[in-house]
C-alpha cells in the first residue's frame, strides 16, 4: 500500500518537473546561502581561536621592558627564582612569517594549538633541532627549518621552541616579553625589586578583537538569514502550489482507501526527502560560495581588525549539520500550512475556490496585523535599541513587517488604479493583476527584501566610503612619513628639515588604560596641521589651544562612547588628570585614542622616543626624498608618502565590504529566480483566466506583452516600496548597529543615482524573469486555449 501510494504521490513531480526544480532549487539556494555564510563564520571563528590559542598575548598580563625592546634572559630566571610564575616569549619576523618562540614547560597555554607528541621527536624539538610548526599554507614560506604541519595555526604564523626562535631571530639570550600566569604564589616580591627594568602590561586585546569580529559575523549572519528567508518564500510558494494541484489526487487516493494519517505521513516523508536532497545540494553550494568568498573575508578581517584568518576552507561537520538542519526546518515551515490544510480537507467536498479565496482574505488580514505589529515594534526599538542584539531585532522586525505589509499595500494600489482605469483593456489589466497578486506575492516579498537589503548596504558602504575618504584626507595630512632607525638618524632628520623650513611632526604613542578601555595616547606637537585638518564631532572653544597648552586632551569617538566620556569629563593619563576638550571621528580604528601635548607626553612617558615623523613637504615629494637620502642617509624604504598610505587604507577598506556586496547580488539573483518560478508555475493556471480574453479578441501577442508589462509594473511598485525600507535599513545599520559594533556613528548620505541603478537592476531581473513566461504565453497554441472551454476541469 505504502509503495503504491508513495509512487503515486511522487509521480506528480515527474509530470511537473518545473515545480520540482523550483522546490529543490529554492531550498538548495536558501540552504546554500545560509550554510555558505555559516561556513565562512565557522572558519573565521576557528581561525581566531587558533590564533588566540597560539599566541595568547592578549589573554595574559605581560611583563615587557620599559623601552619596549628585548631584555636579558637572566631577568626571566631571576623572576622565576623569586617566585614569579612567568613564561618567556620571543616574537619576530622570519622571512615574512611571524615567528613565536615559547617555552612549552612554563607557557600558560603550552604550545597553543600545536600538538607535541605523536611521532615527533620531542627531544629534537627542545634540544635545538630547528623544528618549526606552521600550517600547510605557511609552510612553503619557511626555508632552512624543519616545518611540522599544525593545521590549527593561523596563517602567517609559526611557532617553535624559544631556544630555536632565539637562534633563528638572532637574539640569543634575549626575551621579548614574559607572560604572567594567572596563578601566582603569595608573598611575591615586588617587580621593581626583582626586575626594575620591566613593566606590567595588563591583559587586553583579545576581547576587543572578539567584539569587533563578532559584529562582522553578526552582519554576515543577518545577510545569510535574509537570503534564507528569500529562499523560504520560494519554497513556500512551490510547496503550496504543488499541494494545491494535488488536492484532487489526494481525494482520489483517500476514496480508493488510503487512510488520511498514512497519506499525511507519506507527504511529510516526501517533503523530508526533498529537504534532505536539497539540503545536501545546498550545503555543497554553500561550500562553493564560502570557498569563493573566504579569501576576501580573510583579507577583510585581517585588514580591518588585524585578526588572522586562514584563507583555506575546511569542511566542518557543524555547518554540514546546521545546513541540513536549516533545510529541514525551512521545509517544515514552508510545508507545514500546506500539510495542515490537506489534513483538514474533507474527503467529499470538492475544492471550493470561493472558500479558498475567503481563507486567503482572512490570511491577508492576519498578515496585515502581524505587519503592523512588527513595524510598530521596530519603530519602538528605533528609540531604545542600544546594542547589537536589539539592533538586529529591530532590523528583523522591520524587514519581516515590511514583507508582510507588501501584498495588502500592492493590492490597495492596484485597486486604486483599477478604479481609475478608463479603457476596457486597462480595466482588465488591473483586475487581472489583482487576481494574480496572491500567487506572486511571495516572490514580490523576496524581491522587495533583496532590493531593500541592497539599498541599505550600498548606502552604508557609500556613506562609510565618503566619510572615510574625508577622514583620511584630514588624518594623513602630512605629505611624507619617515621612520628613523636610531637617535642619530632622528637628529639628522630634524636638522635637515630645519634647513629646508619643513615642519616635523613626531608620531609617538604609548598604550594605557583610560576609563577601563585599552587606549593609545599620542604625544602631539603644536602645529597648524591639526588645527586645520582635524574635525571635531564635538568640541569646546579653543580645544586645540587648551590641548597644546597641556591643559586638556582630545579623544576619539570610540573612547568617548565606550568610556562614556563627554566634553569636560576628566581623563587620567599616567599621573595627569585632564578634561576632554574635543571628540574627533576616528574611523577604522578599533581602540581608543587620547591626544596629549608633546611636552606633557614626554614628561609622562620618558621612555618613549619618537621614531616616526610626519613631514609637511611642499613641492615634489620624491625629489625631497632623494635630497633627504643624500643628506641624512635615511633610505627611501624608511619613507612613505601620504598617497601610498591612503591607497593602502582605502584598499583595505574596499575589501571590507566585498563580501556583503557579493551576498547582496546573490540575494537579488535569488529574488529574480523566485519571480521567474512563480510566473512559470502560474502560467499554466492562468490559461483559464486568459482564454476568455483571447476568445473575446485579444491577440496572444498582446496578452504576452501585457504579461510582461504586468511583471514590470509589479516590480516597479515593489522597488518603489523597497526604497524607504532600504533607507530605514541603512539608518539602522549606520546609527544603531555600527555604533554597537564598531563604536562610531557614521553620517548617512543618500545616493539617488545608486538607487536608480538598483531599481534598474531590479527591473532587469523582473523583465528577465517575466520574459520567458510571456514569450511562452504569446506562443500558446490556440488549441490549448480552446481546451479551457472544451474541458471543464
Amino acid at each position, binding site marked *: *500500500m505504502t509503495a*503504491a501510494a508513495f509512487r503515486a504521490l511522487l*509521480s506528480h513531480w515527474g*509530470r*511537473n518537473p518545473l515545480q520540482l526544480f523550483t522546490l529543490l532549487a529554492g531550498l538548495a539556494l536558501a540552504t546554500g546561502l545560509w550554510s555558505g555564510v555559516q561556513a565562512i563564520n565557522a572558519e573565521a571563528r576557528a581561525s581566531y581561536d587558533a590564533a588566540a590559542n597560539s599566541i595568547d598575548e592578549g589573554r595574559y598580563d605581560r611583563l615587557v621592558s620599559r623601552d619596549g625592546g628585548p631584555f636579558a634572559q637572566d631577568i626571566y630566571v631571576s623572576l622565576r627564582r623569586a617566585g614569579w610564575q612567568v613564561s618567556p616569549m620571543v616574537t619576530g619576523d622570519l622571512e615574512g612569517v611571524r615567528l613565536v618562540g615559547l617555552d612549552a614547560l612554563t607557557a600558560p597555554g603550552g604550545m597553543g594549538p600545536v600538538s607535541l607528541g605523536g611521532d615527533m621527536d620531542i627531544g629534537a624539538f627542545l634540544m635545538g633541532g630547528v623544528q618549526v610548526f606552521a600550517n600547510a599554507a605557511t609552510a612553503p614560506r619557511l626555508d632552512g627549518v624543519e616545518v611540522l604541519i599544525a593545521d590549527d595555526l593561523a596563517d602567517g604564523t609559526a611557532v617553535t621552541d624559544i631556544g630555536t626562535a632565539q637562534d633563528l631571530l638572532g637574539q640569543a639570550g634575549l626575551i621579548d616579553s614574559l607572560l604572567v600566569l594567572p596563578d601566582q604564589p603569595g608573598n611575591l616580591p615586588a617587580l621593581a625589586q626583582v626586575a626594575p627594568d620591566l613593566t606590567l602590561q595588563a591583559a587586553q586585546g583579545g576581547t576587543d578583537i572578539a567584539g569587533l569580529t563578532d559584529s562582522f559575523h553578526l552582519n554576515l549572519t543577518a545577510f545569510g538569514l535574509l537570503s534564507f528567508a528569500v529562499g523560504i518564500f520560494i519554497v513556500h510558494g512551490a510547496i503550496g502550489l504543488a499541494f494545491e494541484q494535488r488536492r484532487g489526487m489526494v481525494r482520489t487516493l483517500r476514496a*480508493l*482507501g488510503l487512510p488520511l494519517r498514512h497519506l499525511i505521513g507519506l507527504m511529510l516523508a516526501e517533503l523530508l526527502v526533498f529537504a534532505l536532497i536539497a539540503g545536501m545540494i545546498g550545503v555543497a553550494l554553500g561550500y562553493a560560495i564560502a570557498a569563493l568568498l573566504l579569501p576576501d573575508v580573510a583579507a577583510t578581517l585581517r585588514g580591518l581588525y588585524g585578526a588572522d584568518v586562514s584563507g583555506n576552507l575546511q569542511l566542518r561537520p557543524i555547518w554540514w549539520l546546521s545546513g541540513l538542519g536549516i533545510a529541514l526546518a525551512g521545509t517544515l515551515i514552508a510545508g507545514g500550512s500546506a500539510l495542515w490544510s490537506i489534513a483538514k480537507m474533507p474527503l467529499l467536498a470538492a475544492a471550493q475556490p470561493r472558500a479558498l479565496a475567503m481563507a486567503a482574505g482572512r490570511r491577508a488580514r492576519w498578515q496585515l496585523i502581524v505587519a503592523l505589529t512588527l513595524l510598530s515594534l521596530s519603530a519602538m526599538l528605533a528609540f531604545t535599541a542600544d546594542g547589537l542584539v536589539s539592533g538586529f531585532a529591530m532590523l528583523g522586525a522591520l524587514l519581516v513587517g515590511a514583507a508582510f505589509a507588501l501584498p495588502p499595500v500592492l493590492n490597495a494600489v492596484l485597486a486604486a488604479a483599477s478604479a481609475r482605469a478608463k479603457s476596457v483593456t486597462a480595466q482588465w489589466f488591473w483586475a487581472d493583476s489583482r487576481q494574480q497578486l496572491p500567487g506572486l506575492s511571495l516572490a514580490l516579498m523576496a524581491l522587495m527584501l533583496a532590493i531593500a537589503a541592497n539599498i541599505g548596504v550600498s548606502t552604508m558602504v557609500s556613506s562609510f566610503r565618503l566619510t572615510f575618504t574625508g577622514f583620511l584626507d584630514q588624518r594623513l595630512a602630512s605629505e611624507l612619513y619617515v621612520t628613523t632607525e636610531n637617535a642619530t638618524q632622528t637628529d639628522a632628520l630634524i636638522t635637515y628639515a630645519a634647513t629646508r623650513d619643513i615642519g616635523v611632526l613626531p608620531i609617538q604613542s604609548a598604550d594605557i588604560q583610560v576609563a577601563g578601555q585599552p587606549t593609545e595616547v599620542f604625544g602631539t606637537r603644536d602645529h597648524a596641521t591639526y588645527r586645520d585638518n582635524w574635525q571635531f564631532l564635538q568640541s569646546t572653544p579653543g580645544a586645540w589651544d587648551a590641548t597644546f597648552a597641556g591643559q586638556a586632551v582630545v579623544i576619539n569617538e570610540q573612547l568617548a562612547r565606550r568610556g562614556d566620556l563627554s566634553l569636560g569629563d576628566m581623563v587620567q593619563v599616567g599621573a595627569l588628570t585632564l578634561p576632554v576638550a574635543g571628540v574627533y571621528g576616528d574611523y577604522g580604528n578599533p581602540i581608543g585614542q587620547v591626544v596629549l601635548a608633546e611636552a606633557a607626553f614626554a614628561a609622562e612617558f620618558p621612555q618613549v622616543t619618537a621614531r616616526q615623523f610626519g613631514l609637511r613637504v611642499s613641492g615634489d615629494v620624491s625629489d625631497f626624498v632623494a635630497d633627504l637620502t643624500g643628506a641624512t642617509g635615511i633610505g627611501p624604504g624608511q619613507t612613505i608618502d601620504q598617497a601610498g598610505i591612503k591607497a593602502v587604507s582605502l584598499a583595505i577598506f574596499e575589501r571590507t565590504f566585498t563580501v556583503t556586496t557579493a551576498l547582496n547580488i546573490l540575494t537579488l539573483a535569488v529574488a529574480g529566480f523566485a519571480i521567474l518560478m512563480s510566473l512559470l508555475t502560474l502560467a499554466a493556471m492562468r490559461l483559464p483566466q486568459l482564454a476568455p480574453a483571447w476568445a473575446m479578441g485579444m491577440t496572444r501577442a498582446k496578452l504576452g506583452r501585457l504579461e510582461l508589462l504586468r511583471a514590470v509594473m509589479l516590480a516597479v511598485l515593489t522597488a518603489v516600496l523597497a526604497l524607504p525600507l532600504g533607507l530605514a535599513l541603512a539608518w539602522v545599520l549606520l546609527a544603531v548597529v555600527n555604533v554597537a559594533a564598531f563604536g562610531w556613528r557614521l553620517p548617512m548620505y543618500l545616493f539617488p543615482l545608486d538607487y536608480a541603478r538598483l531599481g534598474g537592476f531590479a527591473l532587469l531581473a523582473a523583465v528577465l524573469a517575466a520574459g520567458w513566461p510571456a514569450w511562452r504565453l504569446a506562443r500558446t497554441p490556440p488549441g490549448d486555449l480552446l481546451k479551457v472551454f472544451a474541458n471543464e476541469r
Partner: protein
Amino acid sequence: MTLLTVDTLTKAYATADGPFAVLRGVSLTLDAGESLALTGESGSGKSTLLHLIGGLDNADAGRIILQDQDITQMDDAGRAALRRGTVGVVFQQFNLIPSLKIADNIAFQARLAGRYDADWCAALAERMGLTDQLRKYPEQLSGGQQQRVAIARTLAPRPALVLADEPTGNLDEGTAATVMDMMLELVGETAAGLLMVTHSQTLAGRLQRRLHLRAGQVA
C-alpha cells in the same frame, strides 16, 4: 446469500437554513452477484446513499451491514481498509491519478489493497480495449477511455461490491452504452454485487433490480 443490508439509514447536512435531511430511513438489501439500480431526482439522496455504503461519509443513524460487518461502526482507518479491498467505487468524474500512466492507474487500487494480479489487470485492460493506451497518461485519453480505465481500476482488486455513481454521466450516448456493456459484463463475471446510481431509465432497466428514491425515502 445477502451481501449488503442497509437498515433505516438517515443522514442530514447542515445548511444555512438549518439541517437538511437527505436520507430519511432508507432500507435495502443486495445479494452477492446481484445488480441494483438506484434512481431518483437530483437531490433525492441516491449519491449520498452510495457514499455512505462506500464508507466515504458517516451516517447519522441506521446500519449498513456489508459481509456481516457494520460499516457505520467503523473508524476512519477501518472504512479506508473497506474501500481498498471490499468495495470499489466508479465515479462520474473518473478520478484517475493524472501523473500515473494508464497501466499504473489500472493496477493502482489492487496494489493499494495488496491484491495485485498482473494477469488479471492485463485481462481487464484487454477486455476494456485499453491495451494500446497502457503507456499513455489519462489526459491523453478520451472521456470514455478514461472511464473504462476507472472501471478496470475498480475491478482489479476483485471487490465484493461495486458502487457506480452515474458512471456514464459524462459520456455521450454511444460511448455510454459501450462502457456500460463492458462494465456489466465484467461485473457479472466477477460475481460482485453492483449498486449503480443513474437517472437514466434505460440504464436502470439493464440491471436486475431497481430502487427509486424520492426525497430521501424509498418510493
